[in-house]
């Protein structure tokens, strides 16, 4: 898993509410069995014109925001579908962090598994960051530090603390494989299930038709 410690770079302001995952990556680009290739379709509907040319009015097509590593957005960023290709597309484009007052819950979880840090800050603070970025024509860099849990925009003297869920924070900092972490608890899980099976035996066996086939040896 990709780690995250800190990032300092260009921040792109997209101060809209309810930026949903259909906007982040339209469903027609979700197909395919490749692990990569989604950054090219990030915000495709807004980023490209009907003829496929870049839309000059779209922020990520404008320098220096085309090099942005931090995204500033308004509330409910990433609402909508569970598509994990939304954080993948953001990460592939070059983003390492999204700062917003709130996030769609499934998207929020998906970010941590894709090396992208979602940072929750009050809207007033996100707006201060966005205003300072715009005033500097994008040159003022925003720093996000997961160790100290701070967001700073040194040029405007802005520094804000945030709080990431501790377990997810450690996962990102250390790049721990979450599945390995859980499998290390095998004995604890088995013991718990032993008791749960007494209470809810029906939850463990689906009585209907048997599974489709026996597993491969």
């Amino acid at each position, binding site marked *: 898993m990709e780690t995250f410690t800190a990032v300092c770079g260009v921040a792109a302001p997209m*101060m*809209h*509410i*309810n930026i*949903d995952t*259909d*906007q982040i990556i*339209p*469903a*027609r680009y*979700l*197909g*395919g*069995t490749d692990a990569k290739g989604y950054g090219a379709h990030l915000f495709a*509907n807004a980023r490209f014109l*009907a003829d496929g040319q870049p839309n000059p009015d779209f922020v990520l097509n404008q320098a220096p925001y085309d090099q942005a590593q931090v995204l500033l957005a308004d*509330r*409910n960023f990433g*609402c*909508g*579908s*569970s*598509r994990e290709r939304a*954080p993948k597309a953001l990460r592939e484009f070059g983003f390492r962090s999204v700062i917003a007052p*709130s996030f*769609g*819950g*499934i998207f929020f*979880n*998906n970010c941590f*598994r894709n090396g992208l840090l979602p940072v929750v800050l009050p809207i007033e603070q996100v707006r201060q960051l966005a205003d300072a970025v715009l005033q500097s024509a994008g040159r003022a860099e925003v720093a996000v530090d997961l160790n100290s849990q701070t967001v700073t925009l040194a040029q405007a003297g802005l520094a804000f603390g945030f709080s990431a*869920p*501790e*377990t*997810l924070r450690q996962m990102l900092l250390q790049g721990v494989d979450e*599945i390995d972490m*859980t*499998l290390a*608890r095998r004995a*604890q*899980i088995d013991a*718990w*299930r032993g008791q*749960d099976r007494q*209470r*809810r*035996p*029906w*939850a*463990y066996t*689906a*009585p*209907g*038709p048997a*599974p*489709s*086939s*026996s*597993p*491969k040896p």
Partner: protein
Amino acid sequence: MSPARTYFDKVWDDHLITALGQDLALLQIDRLVLHELSGSQAVRALAEHGRAPDSRGQVFTVIEHLISTRPGRGPNESVSVSGPAMIDGTRQASRAYGFHFIDHDDPRQGIAHVVAPELGIALPGTTLVCCDSHTCTVGGVGALAWGIGASEAEHVLATQTLAQAKPKNMRVRFEGPLPRGVYAKDLVLALIGRVGANGGIGYAVEFAGSAIAQLPIEGRLTLCNMAVEFSAKYGFVPPDEVTFDYLRGKAYAPQGAAWDDAVRYWRGLRSDPAATFDAEVVIDVCALTPQVTWGISPQHVCAALDRVPEPSAERDEEARAEAQKALDYMQLSAGQALCGVPIDVAYIGSCTNARLSDLRVAAQVLKGHKVKPGVQAICVPGSTPVKLAAEAEGLDRIFIDAGFEWHASACGFCGHIGDDRFANLRVISTTNRNFKGRQGPLTRTHLASPATVAASALAGCIATAEQGPH
């Protein structure tokens, strides 16, 4: 004496294997449902990492997301370019791993969230996850169900557990008798209009109140389907006699003595009378009328008989800006009457509103009438059992005679996966999302109940069934 707990608290506690630090809980997952879009990613990742499924008997795969809705479709037929490979990959993997597998031509096939309650895969007091945000639908039978990403699904495959942060408790009470012509879809749209599309962030939502007690399971499924549209990952109706009557005898539900034990256990999960909720919303349904969305978020909604609201009526500056963008995108003006706006397409389908009761309501409106010439009218039943039951009742004839296309079951046109049929068109739809481009490039989607969609199909413009098209 233990402190009073909500239904949600009890289900959560009964799945809590261990706390992971201050903020996360490792939960037992009772049912994992996979489909060929994200499921294939999860299964492939599992294999690539050299891992095996932990509890294959608790994993169910349904072919439904990318498979074509064309009657007589082939096993890998899809309008998505990458559909065939994803469908077949998911099929092969599901068979190889020995998951419960429901293929494109299985008589039990359908949209996962329609199939899961139909087969008793979703049960009260169980945790059920699926790589689809509308997994919360099956909260309608009292399951604690939520959408997950493909990485989380890989974790569930490998461990049959998942780490989650515990949300806060919200109760939404719908009180009063449901007026004639008002359906579960109208309830949930009205709720989202009231609390906003982000009103449920960080909450698990219990739906309650006298209107819900009276609501059949299919309506409860519609209601819970759209919990995620106000950004609650979880929405559910705690089980009652209606739930037990619905689930008794379903193929994957417990049988015999196990059923009795399960019902006893489920009855004990109800919210304690003294339980407190972190937030409560009460909606009086007595005065509700059919709802239709006018914008690009489900919160952009009003009564069908109303006029498109002024952006200045929105609660804050950002919402006003979004409302203005919505009007531009939707090619509507503030103050314009919604009824009478000409439509190009009427769509009945999706995990929200394509169950048998939905098709019956629509057929009642359509019977003996014709779709307005020039309007494309499409019905995609929520599952193959729904389709077959509708055909047995002759509903398919009513739809077809009225001028509707009658499709095979799948997710269909709810999301745009490659068919540009709705590009640049105005669609009135029984689906759940009116996001920009959701149903196609520049497609303008209006969300409404099946009754309203059927009435609009006949009128050729937004119309309510009560109002009557002719």
